[in-house]
């Protein structure tokens, strides 16, 4: 199987500081790759570069073989890349259902004029999106909350809502930034299953997660970052035994104790 997402030598500097330096790996169809590392290792920055939120200072991102380095997020979305956020980016004033429908934007949007006039074409598109969104909400267990204002939901539910929204794009590559954060054990397990299910349907998944048990359980491949650089990669078993990884994690623990 060929790599859907591959990155080479990716790097970026903020104010002279190398936030991410020379990181490269690839994710294949149906594969779950996790990026782990201590706080401030550059995981979210890496996500932001891949998804076009930041312009990489160096390196290359390609999607199904096409060079998409620094491409706008909406264009990446058109090419099948979708993501969630560590710090939630929910459309607060919309209902839960509308948030999910927003994920259908690319498939439901048509002419503005049709939307203004409320033409049947526009309504039909909106209806299809609505039905799809409802099904997705059911899949993440939010169907009961569909009509509630999203701003009123608890953290874990919002995390799941973001996943639903990201899935609504019907992505080829899915970037999940700490999907299980703030979820209890039961919810985490549900998310586990969901991710595995999505991967099984052929989606390439890139995951950032702090819950090591979850990472070890579901990842096919793990990339370890520290201070913006890749210090190790391999299957879960290899990585967990890697001395550099252990040192990096212990080192940060010590830093935490100091600070």
């Amino acid at each position: 199987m060929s790599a859907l997402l591959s990155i080479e030598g990716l790097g970026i500097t903020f104010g002279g500081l190398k936030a991410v330096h020379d990181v490269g790996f690839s994710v294949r169809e149906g594969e779950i790759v996790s990026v782990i590392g201590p706080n401030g290792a550059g995981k979210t920055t890496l996500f932001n570069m891949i998804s076009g939120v930041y312009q990489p200072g160096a390196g290359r991102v390609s999607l199904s073989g096409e060079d998409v380095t620094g491409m706008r997020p909406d264009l990446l979305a058109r090419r099948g890349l979708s993501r969630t956020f560590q710090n939630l980016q929910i459309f607060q004033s919309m209902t839960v259902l509308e948030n999910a429908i927003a994920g259908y934007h690319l498939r439901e949007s048509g002419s503005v004029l049709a939307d203004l006039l409320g033409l049947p074409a526009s309504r039909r598109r909106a209806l299809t999106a609505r039905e799809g969104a409802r099904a997705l909400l059911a899949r993440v267990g939010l169907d009961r909350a569909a009509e509630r204002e999203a701003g009123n939901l608890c953290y874990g539910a919002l995390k799941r809502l973001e996943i639903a929204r990201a899935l609504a794009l019907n992505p080829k590559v899915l970037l999940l930034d700490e999907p299980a954060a703030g979820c209890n054990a039961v919810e985490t397990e549900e998310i586990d299953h969901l991710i595995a299910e999505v991967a099984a349907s052929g989606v390439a998944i890139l995951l950032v997660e702090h819950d090591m048990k979850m990472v070890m359980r579901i990842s096919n491949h793990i990339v370890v970052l520290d201070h913006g650089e890749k210090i190790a990669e391999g299957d879960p078993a290899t990585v967990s035994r890697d001395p550099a990884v252990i040192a990096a994690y212990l080192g940060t623990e010590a830093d935490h104790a100091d600070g």
Partner: protein
Amino acid sequence: MKLTPKQATLLVLAALIALTPFFFPSGYYYRVGALIFVNGLAVTGIVILTGYAGQVSLGHAGFAGIGAYACALAPVHLGLHPALAAVLGAILSGCMAWLVGRPILRLKGYYLAVATLGFGILVSMVLNNERWLTRGPDGIDVPDLGLRGLLKGWGLDLSNGEFWYFFSGLCLLVGAWLALNLYDSPTGRALRALHGSEIAARVVGVDVARAKLQAFVISAVYASFSGSLLALQNKFVTPDVAGFMHSIEMVTMAVLGGVGSVLGAIFGAGILTLLPQALTVFAEYEQLLLGLVMMLVMIFLREGLLPSILRKIRGTGE
């Protein structure tokens, strides 16, 4: 029967337009009503731009100016019917918004505010300075729309005030209907999404620049038609229609009433149009009170007057 919010809004509006004249003690109230509707139309555009898409413009009077002067100039210079002139004005405003909006809408918050403000001032400057075309600050006559005469021919004899009341009311209804259609449509959702989180909107595939531009153009067209209606009704227009104060007035009306909903914004237009009329008794204190109302509402009723009032009513009802 259960009404959708859209139907309820339109029904309330239609009922208000149709029924309030029964309470009018004199013809002057038709004039005030017509003004409310004209302002309401402009403010509905602001709802799309600010309420849906979260973008601030302090220069929308510029588009009202284009719409108004199109009605004054196109019939004379191009021989167009005034109604077609209004359409021409709307097209012109839309194109102008498209051109200006592309660079401007990259800006955020206050920077966007100052850029739109600059645009509005430029339009009003051109209207003031190009005397050969616009006749300058003293204003210019606008030809008659002719529809009233036509209606008379069909046996519907309305006074000038009545005609403009109902005609503007009808225009407002159409404008509100379009805006409400938009709200729950894919485009409307994209606008509201980028309002909620620009970055998330991008990630779900919304071309943010394009969506903002759409909102800007649509709201410009609203402002333009509002300007045209005003000019046609007054049969006279001055560059004040494009002035900074008019821009501020539009935004204030919308935000004061509740920029999140069409009905709220129109309610704001009503309040701010009525306020100076009601305050004539205290002419000396008018400015003072107006400023006070603006501050108090924004501080204590952040969502705007109508949503707060409705909440009160619901609260006591339950």
